[in-house]
């Protein structure tokens, strides 16, 4: 075992853990003041619930055995993970992957803001992490997984995390319906300083998310740190440029959103690209995701905090652009279209994006319907009016 590699992966696990409260504040600033605790709670609760489920069964379903679709129960209750010892301890890999499992379902909460019942949320993400996240993580991150085996690349989870959570968010939005007052009542963000705080935490944690995925303290990790940071910077600039031209102002929410789109898009590419690629990928994400904001209005989907435009579209952009920008001189043995590798990788990336999107949407759609038909998904109209803070948690964020 390599102590340097181990130290970096353990550190990265802590960095990724910190992203979930970061996400909580990123989202909580954007909701109305009567729902801020509801939003913080849904995110932080994932740290509790998903960690337990992941330890009992999730990790094993993702990384146990040799199946191409799903793992087995060899590592249930985290028994026997020393079998995975290599340059780092198997348990370091468990810790790192656990934080990914936690944040992925938490991403969905932005789409269902202000109306998803807390108890139903708990059931939804608990089951989702077992029946959707664990298999998808298997396909993408495990060498036995069918997408990994096919040759599709996903360095830190553009497909497994962002496309996956983005499609799940869309499915739940369609089943749960729009917020009361959506479209005719203004629902502006109540505390953009929270959103900026969350953005800073996410950006910081993302260094571990992407560079930790090298699973070593080496040149690939260093490249991933630089790529991650540059993509966030370019994403911010790209978003702000379009926003300034189209609406007349460069906004703080735009700076925050643009940086996150760059981070999302570089996630699958982080350890596979170099040179100017992170700047190009980040800028395309910032511009492309801004353009995608209009989708929800056209479709009448109340994706309240733009999980589709930011995570789904950003994840698709990054996953597909890797087919162009992958550079075997940086890492791995696959070149993208622009580096002489032909269209083979791009095709694999299409298949990976499409397969994850279709599976996530179908299973989540069925799961959301099942929950709606049994215990219900939404809070009552009265509870929605008074807000999640009081109706779900019997608390107020701001008392005078």
């Amino acid at each position: 075992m390599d102590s340097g590699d181990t130290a970096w992966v353990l550190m990265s696990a802590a960095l990724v853990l910190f992203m979930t409260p970061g996400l909580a504040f990123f989202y909580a600033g954007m909701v109305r003041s009567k729902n801020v605790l509801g939003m913080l709670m849904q995110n932080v609760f994932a740290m509790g619930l998903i960690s337990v489920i992941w330890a009992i069964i999730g990790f094993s379903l993702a990384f146990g055995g040799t199946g191409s679709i799903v793992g087995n129960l060899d590592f249930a209750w985290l028994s026997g993970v020393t079998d995975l010892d290599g340059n780092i301890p198997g348990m370091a890999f468990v810790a790192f992957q656990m934080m990914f499992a936690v944040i992925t379902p938490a991403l969905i909460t932005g789409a269902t803001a202000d109306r998803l019942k807390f108890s139903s949320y708990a059931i939804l993400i608990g089951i989702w992490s077992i029946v959707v996240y664990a298999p998808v993580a298997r396909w993408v991150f495990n060498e036995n997984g069918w997408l990994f085996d096919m040759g599709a690349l996903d360095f830190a989870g553009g497909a497994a995390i962002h496309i996956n959570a983005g499609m799940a968010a869309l499915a739940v939005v369609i089943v749960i319906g729009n917020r009361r007052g959506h479209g005719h009542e203004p629902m502006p963000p109540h505390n953009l300083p929270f959103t900026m705080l969350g953005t800073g935490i996410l950006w910081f944690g993302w260094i571990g998310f992407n560079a930790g995925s090298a699973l070593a303290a080496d040149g690939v990790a260093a490249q991933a740190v630089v790529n991650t940071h540059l993509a966030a910077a370019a994403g911010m600039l790209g978003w702000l440029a379009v926003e300034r031209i189209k609406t007349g102002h460069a906004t703080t929410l735009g700076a925050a959103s643009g940086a996150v789109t760059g981070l999302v898009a570089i996630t699958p590419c982080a350890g596979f690209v170099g040179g100017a690629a992170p700047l190009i990928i980040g800028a395309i994400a910032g511009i492309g995701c801004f353009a995608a904001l209009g989708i929800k209005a056209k479709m009448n989907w109340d994706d309240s905090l733009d999980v589709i435009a930011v995570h789904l579209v950003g994840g698709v952009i990054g996953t597909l652009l890797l087919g162009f920008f992958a550079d075997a001189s940086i890492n791995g043995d696959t070149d993208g279209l622009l580096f002489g590798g032909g269209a083979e990788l791009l095709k694999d990336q299409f298949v990976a994006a499409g397969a994850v999107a279709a599976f996530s949407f179908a299973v989540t759609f069925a799961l959301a319907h099942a929950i709606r038909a049994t215990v219900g998904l939404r809070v009552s109209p009265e509870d929605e009016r008074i807000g999640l803070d009081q109706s779900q948690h019997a608390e107020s964020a701001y008392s005078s």
Partner: protein
Amino acid sequence: MKLVTAVIKPFKLDDVKDALKAAGIAGITVSEVRGFGRQGGHTETYRGAEYKIDFVPKVSIRVVVAADAVDSVVETIVSSAATGKIGDGKIWVTDVERLVRIRTSEEGADAV
């Protein structure tokens, strides 16, 4: 006695307070209020979506003064709160039937 109520632009509060103090006014009551007038609201843009904000934040000042001081107080507020731009606010004057200083039970002009 008269109650002078003014609704002014929030950033003008310090100027108005200083001017009233200089004019010998012993106390004012301030509250943050929202409303609309000829100024109307304004628009804010979040992620490309425009929101119309109908109510504009203002500050309301209340001053109780002796009847013969009303004109100079109104004059002082007008001159210290005016910017000349739309949304400067309004002042209105009403009669006060009775005034009591709680600490001493003094009434009327003694309590101003």
